Structure formats: C-alpha cells, structure tokens
C-alpha cells in the first residue's frame, strides 16, 4: 500500500442530510445575483456543484490499468485529452482528463469520490502514485449557447475555435487574471473547472463579459 492516509470528507450517517452544504458560488449568487435566462439569452451558465474531484498522480500505464479495473475506463491516450464515461452507479457520468504527463483529473458523481479513491488505491497497490481529493476546492461551471465561444474568447487566451478545440479536449489555461481548466465535453457544451477561492471572480467576470449576450444563469 501507498502508506498514505485517505479521508472521507463528506458527512455520513443519519443526520448527514441536515448538514448545510455550500458550493463555491453560494456567496456569489447571494451577492451578485443570478440573471435569469431570457428569450434573447445567447449564453447560459450553470454550476454543477458538489461533484467528486480527484487529482491522480503517477505513471500512465499503472494508472490506466487501475482505472480500467475500477471504473472500466481508460486514461486519455494523448495529452490534453478528455474521456467521459457513464458511471456505474447511482448517478450519471464521470470523466478523466489529462493535466500533465503524470497528472489527471478524475471527476465522479458527488459522494463517490471516497469509494473510487479507495478502490483505486487498492488497485494501485505498491506503485508510486498519489491521489488527492480536491472536491471541496473546485467546482465545475458549464457554458452553453451560441455565444459561449465568444464569451470564452474574451476570457481565455487559448484558441477555442472548433478546429483547434474539438470535443474531447481539455486544457489548463489563463482565464482573465485567474486560471481554469477548460473542457469541451460535447459540441454545445463547455466546462470550466474553477478553484473555489477564484470562483467568485470567475463568476463576476463571466456575468460582465456575457452581458452583451444576455447571459443567464440556470440554477
């Protein structure tokens, strides 16, 4: 075993549901509000809060093997790759993206991260690797709509033209004066993985940059 200490940071037990949980955008919504989606809205924003975010570090071959065992999915074969799969469990989908030659971001349905981490650790055995649970530290924002790309062009220096940023690509890049992980899981959808402490800045920036397109926030 890796001699690392794993820790489930989600409340469990019968009273768990009574515990208030606040996403990184809770304060922003409170302070800046959330403009409604209107008829002429050309871009919409939605936070997909409370997902399970795990940073995986290690060699591609061993991690790939473990990932196949545990989740039945492979690591992206190329740098900047994003692979999605349906999650074999109660809810939805999971994804894994390349972050660096020895670093990947695994996003699983909220609440599954501890178990996934545990199973991965088991599968990885004595290999040199690291898994860090960062579910509380980042959130996922979704941009959709015909003007989504234009809003991104105002915000990131990275080329988001479809020729250069096809579906299945994911990059870490500069977003205004912060940084984001930018992903394109499907033709019409962009995802931004944002650090918690920068979420409010990112949110305000998006509202400001999206104003001319009548940006709306889905809650």
């Amino acid at each position, binding site marked *: 075993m890796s001699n690392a200490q794993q820790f489930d940071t989600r409340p469990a037990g019968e009273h768990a549901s009574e515990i208030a949980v606040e996403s990184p955008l809770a304060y922003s919504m409170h302070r800046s509000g959330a403009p409604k989606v209107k008829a002429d809205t050309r871009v919409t924003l939605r936070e997909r809060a409370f997902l399970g975010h795990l940073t995986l570090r290690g060699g591609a071959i061993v991690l790939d093997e473990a990932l196949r065992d545990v989740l039945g999915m492979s690591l992206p074969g190329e*740098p*900047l790759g994003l692979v999605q799969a349906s999650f074999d469990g109660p809810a939805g989908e999971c994804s894994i993206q390349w*972050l*660096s030659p020895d670093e990947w971001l695994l996003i699983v349905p909220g609440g599954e991260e501890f178990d996934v981490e545990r199973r991965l650790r088991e599968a990885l055995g004595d290999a040199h690797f690291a898994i860090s649970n960062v579910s509380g530290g980042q959130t996922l924002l979704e941009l959709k709509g015909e003007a989504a790309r234009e809003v991104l062009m105002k915000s990131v220096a*990275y080329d988001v033209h479809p020729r250069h940023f096809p579906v299945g690509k994911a990059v870490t*890049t*500069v977003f205004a004066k912060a940084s984001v992980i930018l992903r394109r899981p499907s033709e019409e959808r962009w995802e931004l993985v944002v650090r918690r402490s920068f979420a409010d800045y990112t949110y305000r920036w998006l509202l400001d940059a999206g104003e001319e397109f009548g940006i709306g926030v889905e809650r």
Partner: protein
Amino acid sequence: MFYIFCPYCGEHREEEEFHPKGQAHISRPADPEATSDEEWGDYLFFRDNPRGVHHELWVHAVGCRKFFNITRHTVSYEILEVYKMGEQPSITAEHYAAQQGAASADKERNASQAKHQEGVRA
C-alpha cells in the same frame, strides 16, 4: 509576446501561461559543503548573460506545471529549440553561429559537438 511550444502539452501556448526561471542547466553542487565561498557565490548568483543564443529554464505554470528548457535568441527573441528536463540542447551559440555563417555546415557534426561545447553544462 512569445508563443511557446510546451514539450509536454505538445502544442504552442501563450507566454502568459509560462514563467521564465532563469538560466537552464544550473545544477546545485553535489557536495555544497565542499565548495569554496567563491564557488558557492558563483552557483547562487553568476549566470550567463549572452547577447545571442541562451538556454533558459521555463515552467508551464498555468498549464501542466512542468519545467522545461528553451533555447532562445536574446536579441531576435526567436525560440530556436524547446527540450525537456534532462535533455541537452542541439542548438548552441557556436552551432547557431556556424549555421548562420555557412549554411552548408555539416549539421550532424555540429550537433554531436554541441554537447561538448563550453557554456553548456548538464
């Protein structure tokens, strides 16, 4: 503003994603206690400052967070080569000068010589 090929991400990225970290191939003396004050001062503070071909350490700070090396001309700012940590440059000042001087120069010979040139340390 530079457009830098990240050898790990495999594509060009804007300079804003990177931080320059000074001269490349500065290695810490293996036994610091055995160095003289002068040698230690040299290691800490003295760097090449060429007007021309320079090997630099950069990090893809907002990106893959990997360090790598860039060979860059400090006047034209042209990036001549990008290579990963642990690798050696194939283009050096001498090589570049030769290339500029005589296009017919035997590139392979220069490249193999490059590793032994002064000023390029591991």
